[in-house]
């Protein structure tokens, strides 16, 4: 990771509405050159609308978007040769052959990447003469990625680049994204796969309901790798009695019905053996068996569910 990564994408207070329904309601984040920034969130969180504003495909209703310091709408002519885009669903013409589409894309740039090299990297060599509609979903995805990268972009916006890929193809795409990062490209990808974001991203932007609910490196978001305690029990247990016994900075959350996580939200607080004892003693008092009691690291999924539980009015979350 570079010492002081230069900002390639800067989104500030972005608002995008469709009719009266806000898809993005004041989102802000930055993405740096030489880093993978994952915009993460459930379906309908506003991820695609956000990147489409960055790509110049949609006009923001509020806030500003800057890509390489420029306005995607006003400076589209300058930005388009420098920005690679992979749309959700690919956007590929069904009747055309894979090789023709890649060649067409290459012809748009003065110094394109060698199509053969990308084809080899993405393992598409056997499908070049096949009409796109007869390619598998995964092959279409990889072709769309090749089209996004053929012009040697400085910024790559990849909307769900691994959707519909089998595990092997996912590894191929992940490797390609890591190589992009190592050559200084700012990669902005959307995903709803938490493990993908955790494995691939330098920065994670967590979106829910059109807003950025958390942002940072996966390590920062998961509390610096501190321990968490999780267990299953009956849903909807009153948590106040436990919460008051836990030290400051340690919280207990029912992240989904019947699933409880005890952990720290700040680097200052660490889960201690005494906290584990407090949890098990609390369970004992209630005559409740903590099924699947596990001491482990908090995953991005735990963070996400905790945040979702906090955001949701019906969520049971204490402190």
């Amino acid at each position, binding site marked *: 990771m570079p010492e002081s990564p230069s900002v390639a994408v800067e989104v500030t207070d972005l608002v995008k509405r469709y009719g009266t329904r806000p898809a993005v309601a004041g989102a802000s984040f930055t993405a740096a050159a030489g880093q993978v920034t994952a915009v993460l969130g459930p379906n309908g969180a506003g991820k695609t609308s956000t990147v489409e504003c960055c790509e110049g495909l949609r006009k923001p209703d509020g806030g500003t978007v800057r890509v390489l310091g420029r306005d995607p709408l006003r400076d*589209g002519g300058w930005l388009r040769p420098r920005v690679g885009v992979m749309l959700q669903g690919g956007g590929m*013409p069904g*009747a055309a052959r894979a090789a*023709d589409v890649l060649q*067409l894309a290459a*012809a748009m*740039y003065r110094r394109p990447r060698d199509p053969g090299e990308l084809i080899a990297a993405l393992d598409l060599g056997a499908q070049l003469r096949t009409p796109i509609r007869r390619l598998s979903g995964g092959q279409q995805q990889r072709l769309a990625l090749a089209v996004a990268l053929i012009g040697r972009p400085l910024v790559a916006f990849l909307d769900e680049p691994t959707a519909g890929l089998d595990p092997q193809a996912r590894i191929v795409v992940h490797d390609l994204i890591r190589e992009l990062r190592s050559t200084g490209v700012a990669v902005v990808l959307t995903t709803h796969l938490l493990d993908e974001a955790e494995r691939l991203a330098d920065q994670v932007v967590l979106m829910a309901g059109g807003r950025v609910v958390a942002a940072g490196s996966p390590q920062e978001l998961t509390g610096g790798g501190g321990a968490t305690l999780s267990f299953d029990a009956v849903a909807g247990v009153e948590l106040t009695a436990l919460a008051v016994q836990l030290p400051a900075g340690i919280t207990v959350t029912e992240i989904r019905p019947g699933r409880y996580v005890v952990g720290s939200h700040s680097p200052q607080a660490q889960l201690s053996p005494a906290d584990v004892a407090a949890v098990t003693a609390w369970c004992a008092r209630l005559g409740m068996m903590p099924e699947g009691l596990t001491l482990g690291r908090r995953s991005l999924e735990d963070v996400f569910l905790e945040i979702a539980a906090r955001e949701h009015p019906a969520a049971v979350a204490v402190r």
Partner: protein
Amino acid sequence: MILEPTAHPAPTEAAAPVAQRVLAQARFDARSMLRNGEQLMLTVILPLLVLVGLSRSSVVDLGDGPRIQLAAPGVLALALISTSFTGQAIATGFDRRAGLLRLLGTTPLGRTGLIAGRVGAVLAVQLIQIVLLGTAGVLLGWRPDSAGIVPALLVGVLGTAAFVSLGLLLAGTLRAEAVLAAANLIWVLLLAGGGVVLAADRLGPVGPVVQWLPSGALGDGLRSSLSSGTWPWLDLAVLLAWAVIGTAATVRWFRWD
């Protein structure tokens, strides 16, 4: 997997020259049209059948004079409409649904380059149509007036502009399946009573209306220029007006997604 480092800033001009971009798009679109069986049926096979049918039978009254002299310009008009309107609208409608229009809008081609390339492809396919159908017409005895070639070319260009803009309007406002149905239906209606192969003055009571349609102006314009070598000023004006209206409406209502 070897990717050469690209950490250096992009060259000042990272995009290919605009002519190269538009030509690449035009070549791609033209090849797509020529590879597509249904499109070929519409752009070449059906006009050829209409040409042979009209010149060899006397089922339909084309008007005074040798039948081939009236049939050939009308069939050329029909073929130009097939490519610039029906074929182009259907292709654009499905490309729009697939997301290709949005995707190409993010490449250096941009939206104007995309339209320019598509128009280039239409013109290229039309050139092939003119050569094929013109040759067939001459073999069937057609003798176009050489003085009418220039006005006929102008009629063809303005007619193409009008029909491309109307085709884009259709493709950019309706669902792909609706574009398919509407574009084909309109083609059949224009063939039957749009003043394309049958002169407007042969259409009875609807004739005075039809001559103000782009189809009637295109058909009549080609017939009068290629048959008698005259400049069809009224038809040219009508086509120009439709091109302006169609382009303005397309700019106003075309949706890329």
